[in-house]
């Protein structure tokens, strides 16, 4: 006979306890802790929005819709911020156009092309790019890079004067410190973060998909298009949004290399201004309405970031839905 006590066959186990009711205190409190940390983001953002809007309120009430005029002039006490909104948009677009292909390219290089042994040094090099502080980018930009670019801009500018689309875009006036230079420096700064995140995302595409594509005779490009991209596009877009946020919010480097000249012009090589740069440059001496205007520019930047994020997510959702076939 058995010495092991066995449970009786099919004895009713009693009323079923939903796991929730018996969840240990530690589990529940961990969930609450995680929720609290998630809410922290909302709390901080709401506090930022409230405190900056409060300090900016006099600008909104004094200027009304005039905040979108292009008439920023502290000497005349008028503060229309259109030139800065334009500058932020232009520099962010230039930065993204240059950084995203490069970053995704490097990420693909690391995961698909380069053997594992070589990928470590390449990763360290990209990390080095992240390690340079923004103030050093700005100083190098204005002391070394901008003067060198100035001669290049001058050559290009004189070459394309008068040509149909290129003239207004790249023609004179040209200056080392300009929208384009700022865009390039921002591109350097956002590359590491977009590369690193894209690489992590792309690296987890299941090997089966990739091998299947190769087995069907695909070239590497076709494999990337067919197996890697659909799997990782959401993550890459998330990485790009992170980079774009950085490009729009970068303060000191932009303040040093953008040229500090509030102007709306199609000439990309001309000096310009953007939102974080004007706040950084003018806040120290500002008071009264000017200070409220600078805070208001910060509020405007929130709103713009929100709008752009909504659009980007909408686009991703739509394409993902289309791929899923719903």
């Amino acid at each position, binding site marked *: 006979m058995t010495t092991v006590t066995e449970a009786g066959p099919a004895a009713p186990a009693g009323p079923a306890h939903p796991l929730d009711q018996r969840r240990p205190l530690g589990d529940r409190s961990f969930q609450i802790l995680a929720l609290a940390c998630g809410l922290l*983001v909302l709390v901080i953002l709401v506090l930022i929005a409230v405190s900056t809007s409060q300090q900016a309120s006099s600008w909104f009430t004094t200027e009304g819709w005039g905040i979108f005029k292009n008439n920023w002039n502290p000497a005349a006490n008028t503060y229309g911020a259109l030139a800065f909104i334009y500058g932020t948009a232009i520099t962010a677009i230039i930065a993204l156009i240059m950084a995203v292909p490069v970053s995704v390219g490097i990420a693909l290089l690391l995961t698909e092309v380069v053997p594992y042994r070589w990928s470590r040094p390449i990763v360290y090099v990209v990390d080095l790019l992240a390690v340079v*502080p*923004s103030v050093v980018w700005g100083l190098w930009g204005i002391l*070394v890079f901008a003067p060198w670019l100035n001669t290049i801009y001058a050559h290009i500018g004189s070459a394309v004067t008068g040509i149909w689309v290129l003239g207004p875009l790249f023609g004179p006036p040209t200056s080392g410190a300009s929208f384009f230079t700022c865009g390039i420096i921002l591109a*350097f700064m956002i590359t590491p973060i977009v590369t690193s*995140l894209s690489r992590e995302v792309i690296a987890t595409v299941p090997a089966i998909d990739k091998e299947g594509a190769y087995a069907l005779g695909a070239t590497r490009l076709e494999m990337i298009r067919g197996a890697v991209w659909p799997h990782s596009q959401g993550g890459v877009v*998330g990485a790009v949004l992170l980079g774009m*946020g950085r490009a729009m919010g970068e303060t000191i480097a932009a303040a040093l290399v953008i040229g500090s000249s509030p102007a709306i012009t199609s000439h990309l090589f001309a000096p310009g201004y953007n939102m974080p740069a004007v706040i*950084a440059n003018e806040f120290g001496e500002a008071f009264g309405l000017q200070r409220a205007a600078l805070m208001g520019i*910060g509020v405007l930047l929130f709103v713009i970031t929100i709008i752009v994020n909504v659009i980007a997510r909408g686009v991703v959702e739509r394409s993902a839905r289309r791929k899923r076939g719903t």
Partner: protein
Amino acid sequence: MAAVTGQQNVDLREPKGWRRTSNRIVTVLMVLAFVLVIIPLGFVLVTVVAKGISIISVTFLTSQIPPNVAPADVGGIWPAILGTLEIVGLATLMAVPLGILGAIYLNEYGGRGPLGVLIGFMSDVMTGVPSIIMGLFIFSIWVLHFGYSGFAGALALGCLMLPIVIRSTYEMLRLVPNSLREGSYALGATKARVTLTVVLPAAIGGIVSGALLAVARAAGETAPLIFTILGGLTLATNPNVFSGATTALPLLIFSNASSPYVGAQARGWGAALTLIVICFVLMIAARLVTARFARYSR
């Protein structure tokens, strides 16, 4: 029975024509992308090293900050190094755990619910807030009540780091296969235990690298510090990070580089080189730690 009727000639060579060309072009472009990154990096590093290396010495790294007019061989940058290490360290201690927990909420608990979507969306928006606004925010919330301090600077930098840590951790957690979680649940583990002991270690490599990027960003930021730590220490050090004005390397670099005095400029570039070295050492150390401790390596 093998059906070997007229064996087709299978062409095992590379696909011809446009497919091959486009493949080659793309490979070249990818290598070009990497080269495009090396060039400016090389220039920046060469500039900083050329301008900064001559002033670096043990005395330089451990002496007080002299007035700007002092020549290059007088004084050093110790208070700024101490300030950076303390402030960035404190900011990391605050932002990284909170960020990881926030991402855990987003990925494990919040998911597709409205609150989860909102929090994820808002943390992306937060990455776009100019760093100077973070500084002004902490100024109005904290400094006005408790005065300038290294802690206020750490708060500002922590706010800057938080959305980056959340977003990168979230992406990493999302990629951990569900089979891991399901297996653990099947063994009777609670959600908290699964998350902490199975999911997090699986994603730790990506999480640490994302946290590192956030730390590197925070260490190099100037604007939030202007409004929270005051700077301006001459011949004084403030080791107490919780009270009293202090200074940090990025602030020193910024104010010295626009000074016309040769000594101040040299000290500024020496500080820039020091900051880059510190950040790089931290990055290498953390990558080594991940390589040693990550359970899932590629």
